[in-house]
């Protein structure tokens, strides 16, 4: 029941915002902040009361805050939600990041009421996806995130926002349909004919049918891979990010990408253990390619936001590498558990750090309407706080010890080394490239003589479609407004959490570990 409240609270707040047109923009954003904060508090309470259990627990048992109501009895789909060690960290991440985006948007002047409602709707969809223990429910929420994000990009994006939004929608919608086909395959392949994830994981469908199992895994894998995204399905990502607003990008990278990787851990691995074992090499190889491709493509970017977008491909590659290695049963359970833990840890770490990075790029956009490296330089002088935060976030993202991402990547590599040493060694090279590219980016933006976009209307030439009267904020020559209070309050906690989780990983590991062990054991069936 508590979990249902957590899921639906943002939606109710969104409905409230839509229903009361008298509310002015600023109060609307405050409602958003309040609803997100209340939701975070509830999630905090859930975390406090959650018993992760000892040994292996989660996925097929030991699920907390469970609710199971029948929905469509003819196909045995239900409203089945609950949390375990896999979903709780991501639910918490969702609550944190949405609150950060709410605070960030306090100064956002463009249709704030509608934006707040849309983001609250998105929050419900994201929380629902992570909490779902039923394939159809998962799909419902999964699809709603796509719809919500489409309107965020199309409505509040810049540049070629409509086109990017359409590309995002079409790509991820293809993915979601592949996912739906896979789910139907699981349903028809199961003995009991059910969409319930727990039941399916207990008694995996299509166990004796390698071809059918492989095809169903292909459909599900395709759907999740597009969402994650991994090479070669990542091409929607840079466009969507470049044209999305800062808060939208933070949610897209921080939360929506996790829906894909979370689906692998929650659905593909426990429900199709046979097929996952058989094809474990595929996620490993694709993961490694994504690591390298993402890093190299990021290196080639001339635009800060596109660069960060490509590093997401790189970071998600580590997750896939870890999960693939967890399916290689030649390795011992300890190593495979470690790889799984690392993968889940990486999801959280990436959510915090990339969320912060994207919010920070929003500072550049709001001041100068561009992300291009050559328009900015020497920002450490006029905006020392911004420079410091960007540096911290960048060091975190490249996996410096002391940050959550280090803990994550270290575990992924340690766990995967035994199962697939070659792939792991190649992936480590990716870290080097990432480190290099973040340092280069910092150097370009922060060091040297101060350069800010000049007061040139030419660069503000986004087509004002439909003849809307566009008023533009001109960048001030030679100076840069440093972080505002709202921006600070939004970004600092994200970075602080990333550091805390890097220095004291136990708090999170205790929750993840039992569930990760269960996944590792279930895959080995």
């Amino acid at each position, binding site marked *: 029941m508590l979990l249902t409240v957590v899921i639906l609270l943002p939606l109710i707040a969104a409905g409230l915002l*839509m229903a009361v047109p008298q509310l*002015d*923009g600023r109060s609307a954003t405050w409602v958003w902040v309040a609803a997100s904060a209340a939701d975070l508090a509830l999630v905090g309470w859930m975390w406090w009361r959650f018993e992760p259990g000892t040994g292996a627990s989660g996925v097929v048992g030991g699920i907390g805050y469970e609710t199971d109501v*029948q*929905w*469509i*009895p*003819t*196909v045995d*789909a239900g409203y089945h939600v609950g949390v375990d060690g896999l979903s709780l960290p991501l639910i918490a991440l969702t609550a944190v990041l949405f609150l950060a985006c709410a605070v960030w948007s306090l100064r956002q*002047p*463009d*249709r*704030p*009421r*509608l934006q707040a409602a849309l983001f609250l709707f998105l929050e419900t969809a994201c929380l629902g996806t992570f909490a779902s223990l039923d394939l*159809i429910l998962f*799909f*419902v929420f999964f*699809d*709603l995130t796509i*719809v919500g994000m489409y*309107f965020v990009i*199309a*409505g*509040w*994006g*810049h540049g070629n*926002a*409509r086109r990017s*939004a*359409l590309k995002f*929608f*079409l790509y991820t*919608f*293809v993915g979601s*349909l*592949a996912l*739906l*086909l896979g789910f*139907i*395959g699981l*349903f*028809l392949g199961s003995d009991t004919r059910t969409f319930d994830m727990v039941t399916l994981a207990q008694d995996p469908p299509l166990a004796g049918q390698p071809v059918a199992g492989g095809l169903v895994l292909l459909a599900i894998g395709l759907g999740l891979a597009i969402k994650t995204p991994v090479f070669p399905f990542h091409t929607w990502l840079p466009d969507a990010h470049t044209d999305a607003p800062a808060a939208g990008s933070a949610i897209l990278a921080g939360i929506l990408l996790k829906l894909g990787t979370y689906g692998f851990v929650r659905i593909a691995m426990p429900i199709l253990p046979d097929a996952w074992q058989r094809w474990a090499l595929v996620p490993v190889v694709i993961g490694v390619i994504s690591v390298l491709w993402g890093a190299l493509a990021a290196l080639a970017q001339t635009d800060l936001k596109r660069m960060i977008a490509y590093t997401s491909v790189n970071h998600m590659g580590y997750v896939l590498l870890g999960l693939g290695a967890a399916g290689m049963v030649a390795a011992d359970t300890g190593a495979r558990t470690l790889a799984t833990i690392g993968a889940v840890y990486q999801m959280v770490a990436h959510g915090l750090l990339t969320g912060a990075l994207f919010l920070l790029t929003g500072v550049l956009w709001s001041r100068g*309407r561009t992300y291009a490296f050559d328009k900015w330089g020497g920002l450490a002088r006029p905006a020392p706080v911004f420079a410091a935060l960007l540096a911290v976030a960048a060091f975190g993202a490249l996996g410096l010890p002391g940050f959550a991402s280090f803990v994550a990547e270290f575990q992924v590599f340690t766990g995967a080394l035994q199962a697939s040493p070659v792939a792991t060694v190649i992936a480590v090279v990716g870290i080097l490239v990432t480190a290099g590219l973040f340092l280069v980016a910092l150097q370009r933006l922060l060091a040297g003589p101060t350069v800010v976009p000049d007061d040139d209307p030419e660069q*503000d030439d*986004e087509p*004002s*479609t*439909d*003849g*809307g*009267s*566009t*008023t*533009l*904020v001109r960048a001030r020559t030679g100076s840069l407004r440093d972080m505002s209070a709202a921006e600070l309050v939004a970004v600092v906690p994200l970075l602080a959490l990333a550091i805390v989780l890097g220095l004291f990983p136990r708090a999170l590991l205790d929750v993840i570990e039992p569930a990760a062990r269960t996944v590792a054991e279930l895959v080995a069936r």
Partner: protein
Amino acid sequence: MNEMGDSGGEVFAMLPELLLLAGAVGGLLLGLWTPQHHQWRVRVLVVLACLASAAAAAVGLSGNDSTVFEDTWVIDTTTGVVRITVALAVALIVGLGASSLAGHPRETEAYVLMLLGALGAVALAAGNDLLLLVAAYLLASVPLYALAGFAKDARGTEATMKYYLMGAFVGVLLLLGVASVVLATGVTGYPAIGDLLGQAPAPLAALGVLGVLAGLLFKAGAVPVHQWVPDVTAGTTPTMAAYITTIPKVGAVAAAFRLLDGPFAAAPVDVPLLVAVIAALTMTLGNLAAFSQTEVLRLLAYSTISQVGYLLMVVAVAARSDLALPALLIYLVGYAVTNIGVFAAAAAKPAAGTIDEWAAASRDRRWLVVSLVVCLLGLVGTPPTAVFVGKLAVFSAAWDGGLAWLVVVAAINTVASLFYYLRWITPAAASSAGAPSLRGSSQAPHDHDTHRAVSAQQERVLAGPMTLVHLTAIASLLLGIGSGAVLVAALPG
């Protein structure tokens, strides 16, 4: 009706149809003696008749399956759901037409024709005999010709001619098919055909199956007899278009389902494969043709064609999967509701022909756009709307029935359909949310001010149809979320 004799009981079992008929006759008589400006009385009577018919059908739903009038008329779950859907849909469409038909010289005639056509649709679905099917075909066709040309303008007349000529031609095919089946088996009742068609010579049986299916596909607006759909839809008023693309389709698809479930299952030709191929062609062709449309009604016309393609998927596996019947029912209901919703959106802006005009006219109507988005995304199959549950069930049933390839085709088509539905959603959403993303609008104190600047030639938006868009959007969501309860209530056991 109170006498509880044998035929009395049979008559009582057909109460929903009788109520529709009574509404038609009563409406006609009432209309004759009612002054022009008081014709709303007829409207009320007709809506009441529809609601009473739906209520009677809902009561009958809990009873056991039975046949009446010497096995020519089946009363089972399918009939029951079609009765309810058709009656409620007609009530909605009468409400939709109220704003444009009020005070029209032939207002009463329109309502009466709608009721008669509805009766034909129900008869299609409930018929258990080929001769009754022919009669139902005519009853579901002839009133519609009049409705299609109701506006008496050039476009409407042309469309009606096309519709009528095709209908007459396909009617001959239907008769030919019925004759072939009779020739092959010597009977007209479905159960007997099911027993005998297996031993019939294959060419004769094939001819029979093809002819009968042609008639039903025409009513459903499926390939290859779909050409009338865009012309009629775009040529007539949105109200009539909503009627013509909803009511007969429901009846025809249910009739095809009944045929494939029983009599045609034993045919010496692979009828399910035939229907599956037609389904694939229908959805693909509908989608491809919809891509380039800029006119709202033409876009919707092709959208209805593609939707019939998904419905035919479940017809193909009627006899092969236990999941088929619930899938058919939930999809039919979801389609009817959602389709009326999008046509109501078109009717709300009678003067807006193209998508852009529509979007421009809805500048200040945020809720209308929200409801439209719900309906259109519903047609795509986005959860948690009714059509999503329908699509899920249809996909499951088709795969379960051994047509996995068709499911893949349908999935690809769903993605393609998203593309043209978004062509309507995007401009509508953008214009309702003010000028598209004022990037630097930090000077504007509040968002309201910028997009409240309504252009002078702001078009009239009709309140009645707009309410209907909201209603159907809510109904679509509720049906999707409550689909389990609906199915449990409808399905026996």
